[in-house]
């Protein structure tokens, strides 16, 4: 039916607007958008609708609701199941305690031993992990440079990149536009570090590409050089940032200052 053609257009336009078209279809749609004035007007109207809906006041979680829920769960959760059992057998419990003194000493020794060796392996593991994380991030950066483009979503508009992350990741970083400081926002991609998908923002400085990967805060990565790429890391309350680039390290330090200053400032909508 002819009307289905029209419907398809509408669907295509919506999917493009939502960033859900595959790259080939997106490019084709953009070409049509540029050529077709009527389509372009409709697309702009769709965008303005989206802006209007997103600008709606947010319903904020009433304070205290979370606590009420927690205490409701405490009331009918684990407490009930355990306490009656304990209350019924006080004598038994006491006897068990007396008899098992030596077992307790043994158990304590065993636990202590386990904790010590556990801590040692943990530190070692953590050290290795930090190394691995840096190497993985650099590998993702290199992979990005080899691909036709180093990002999954191409846009110099932070209002496109930020929602793109938000719709894919549970936590997404601020995406400041640092063009004024000489670092052009070019897009973003999702990297997988360990098993976790994380947000990587891509900037350009002259001909150099900078990948800024955001890890959950608390995972420090030492500054270093891997395969000729400078790795520089810093943290704020929300994220640990790892910047990778072939820029010399003083320039990367400038980038860090620019990014920190911009992302600390409250986001202007």
């Amino acid at each position: 039916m002819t009307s289905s053609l029209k419907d398809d257009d509408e669907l295509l336009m919506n999917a493009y607007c939502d960033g859900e078209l595959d790259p080939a279809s997106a490019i084709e749609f953009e070409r049509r958008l540029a050529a077709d004035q009527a389509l372009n007007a409709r697309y702009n109207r769709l965008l303005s609708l989206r802006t209007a809906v997103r600008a709606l006041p947010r319903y904020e979680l009433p304070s205290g609701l979370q606590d009420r829920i927690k205490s409701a769960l405490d009331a009918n959760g684990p407490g009930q199941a355990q306490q009656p059992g304990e209350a019924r057998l006080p004598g038994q419990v006491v006897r068990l305690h007396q008899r098992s003194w030596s077992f307790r000493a043994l158990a304590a020794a065993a636990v202590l031993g386990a904790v010590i060796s556990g801590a040692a392996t943990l530190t070692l593991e953590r050290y290795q992990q930090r190394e691995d994380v840096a190497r993985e991030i650099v590998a993702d950066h290199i992979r990005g440079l080899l691909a036709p483009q180093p990002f999954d979503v191409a846009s110099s508009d932070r209002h496109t990149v930020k929602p793109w992350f938000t719709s894919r990741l549970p936590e997404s970083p601020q995406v400041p536009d640092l063009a004024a400081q000489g670092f052009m926002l070019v897009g973003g991609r999702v990297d997988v570090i360990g098993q976790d998908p994380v947000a990587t923002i891509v900037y350009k400085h002259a001909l150099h590409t900078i990948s800024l990967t955001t890890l959950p805060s608390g995972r420090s990565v030492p500054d270093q050089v891997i395969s000729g790429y400078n790795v520089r890391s810093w943290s704020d309350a929300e994220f640990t940032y790892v910047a990778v680039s072939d820029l010399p390290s003083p320039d990367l330090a400038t980038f860090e200052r620019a990014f920190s200053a911009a992302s600390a400032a409250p986001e202007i909508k």
Partner: protein
Amino acid sequence: MTIPLSVRRSHFRRAELVEVVLEQQLEGPDRLSGPQQAAAPIVQNQDDRAVFDEVFLPHMAEAYRLAHWLTGNASDAEDVVQDAALRAFRGIRSFGAVNARAWSLTIVRNTAYSWLMKNRPKAVVFTDDLSAAEQRQLEQEGPQGTRIETPEEIALFKADAEDVQRALAELPAQFREAIVLREINQLNYRDIAEITNVPIGTVMSRLSRGRQLLIALLGDRT
């Protein structure tokens, strides 16, 4: 190439409204909180609680936002979120460790509808995805019958927030939830499909239809 003239408020108001039977709408992921489970004594341990805290609690703000949009007011939303939290806790062992956000919001969404069905059945209105009137008009007129708007005629919105809010609240439930999940919760199509228990194609067409309806509603007002 334009919004069918039929997409006007008057038309979809007149369109046949279908109240979907609760069980029919809520099959799928809500199984976990079925009545047979609620009736049995629940013995849950500290681990369940820890998993719950990790899986459900971080999405509480989003859960509330969704519940508010689905029920239409703050106190209902609180009830729904509380109810959903309890259901989530009871069903925490059915959490597949894949997508905590979608899992949590699925429960909230289903709880919201069953809560509405129980307490305010008149408030829940679903329509056919393409209403009978619209279908007929499309078939009779075809695309030629609809006027092509010139770019100049397609005005951008200057609607204020109140109008947008009211228009969104007026949409039939399945369009409203699709738009809220997309624009307010900012989920991708796959997650929306999972939460609303429909194929991705349906999500696409609901979003597209919902937005057209919104545009028509807002256009009527100005």
